[in-house]
């Protein structure tokens, strides 16, 4: 299906104060891909994610979702196809109850109240949070809020799901639940994360970013086990592949 192809074509982005955040990025995501996005702080991961659904528009180059070029006139449609889960669930859950939050997207897509709530319950079930439907977000734990935030994006039935540091504040068990959850999704996924082990588990392919440029794009096991690449990118080897994970000293 044509919507399941997301293309970045030589995208550059310069912030209003002049900083160059993205520099000539080109890559493609296809239906069913599960891709990781890694890089040091300031490498441009969040800026890249913001370009996926038109929160930011490129200074040069173009982004397209299927046949739709991402531009001022196509934002509403693009956002129906690309779902973005932010780092902080509190930024995404702004309604009085979890159910209303998750139903927000479907409502804006034109569903009636009843239809939207049905879609919302379905999304909450898929993340295992249906018991939280009537609760206000501020009464939920961080892990629960993360789950509900993901449900809120899923409820809009996007084709692509982009997540920004989904496991950043989760405790180990919540993190494990999240990985299991994301494993089960058949959506095309782009996961930006510092948690290299999570990326290794979830994403067969990885994009390595450095200072706004694409350093590498390929098989995640191969790239993330490459010490020179990791060093060049300002990262280190994931625990699961580094000798340190087995009790030896520092690798880099």
């Amino acid at each position, binding site marked *: 299906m044509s919507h399941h192809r997301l293309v970045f074509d030589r995208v550059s982005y310069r912030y209003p104060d002049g900083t160059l955040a993205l520099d000539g990025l080109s890559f493609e995501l296809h239906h069913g891909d599960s891709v990781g996005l890694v890089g040091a702080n300031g490498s441009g991961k969040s800026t890249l994610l*913001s370009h996926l*659904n038109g*929160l930011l528009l490129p200074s040069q180059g173009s982004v397209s979702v299927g046949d739709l070029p991402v531009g001022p006139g196509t*934002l*509403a449609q693009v*956002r*129906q196809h690309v*779902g*973005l889960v*932010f780092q*902080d669930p*509190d*930024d*995404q859950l*702004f*309604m*009085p*109850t979890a159910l*209303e939050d998750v139903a*927000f*997207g479907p*409502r*804006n*897509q034109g569903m009636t*109240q009843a239809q939207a709530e049905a879609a919302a319950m379905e999304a909450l079930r898929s993340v295992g949070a249906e018991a939280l439907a009537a609760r*206000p*977000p*501020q*009464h939920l734990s961080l892990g629960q809020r993360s789950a509900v935030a993901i449900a*809120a*994006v899923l409820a*809009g039935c996007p084709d692509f799901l982009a997540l920004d540091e989904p496991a950043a504040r989760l405790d180990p068990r919540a993190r494990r639940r999240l990985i299991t959850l994301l494993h089960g999704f058949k959506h095309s996924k782009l996961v930006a994360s510092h948690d290299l082990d999570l990326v290794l588990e979830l994403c067969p392919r990885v994009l390595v970013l450095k200072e706004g440029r694409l350093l590498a794009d390929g098989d995640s096991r191969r790239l993330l086990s490459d010490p020179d690449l990791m060093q060049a990118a300002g990262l280190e080897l994931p625990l699961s592949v580094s000798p340190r994970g087995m009790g030896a000293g520092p690798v880099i």
Partner: protein
Amino acid sequence: MNAGAWSGLQELDRLAAGHSWLHRLDPLVKLLLGLGFAVAVVSVPKYALPSLAPLLMVPVLMAALAGFEPLPLLARAWPAAGVALMLGAFNPLLDPQRVDVAGCQVSAGWLSLAVMLAKALLVAGMALVLVASSGFARLADSLGSLGAPHIFVQQLQLLWRYAGLLAEESDRLKRARDLRDPLARARGPRLAARLIGGLLARSLARAERIHQAMLCRGFRGSLPGAALRPWGPQDWAALAGGCGLIGACRFLPLVPWAQQALERIQP
């Protein structure tokens, strides 16, 4: 107000998850009764302390119906007495009239001060019962069905959603200041301004992110309001009964009757 007070507030909101008969009433009924009660209390003239006494029945009865402990709620209502005390404290000094209380001649100002304090506590107590049995979010929605503009109801909901979060941030800032300043030397307005400025910058950044999150999910200019269910017979009955009770407490001469009854028992 500190973050501790804020979490006390959240406790109050949690009380709204009860299942008593009062909880199940439409919040609009309770809001209207609260306003009617306030009108009854405020209409009591300056010195008419006996007229206020029966009105105490209303919040106490409502709290009982909701299954609340009356004393903790009353304790929460206490700050209301502050302003009344501050301004009313002059009454005993300035009021030239004298009144006979239990055989002593005291300034009528004591009477008017007592009336003011009682009024403040009554209305505050009623407001707390109202809020604790409805929950803030539903109360805000019921304002909408009363005719309040949607943008204002939306504002109340978002304020409620984020006040706790920002209160925590503010508490952290304050603690950071206080911990590094054990001798309390840096408590002036200049540092406070810097802290507040930092809080503002963070708040505006958060607002921007929230706005973007709204846009990502198809925001069209305003958030959807809650679906409100129509009133049932118990709502109408409660409204009628509540108004009747308030009216009776306000206008029936219950205190003289009680006095007459007492005199009959104990001549």
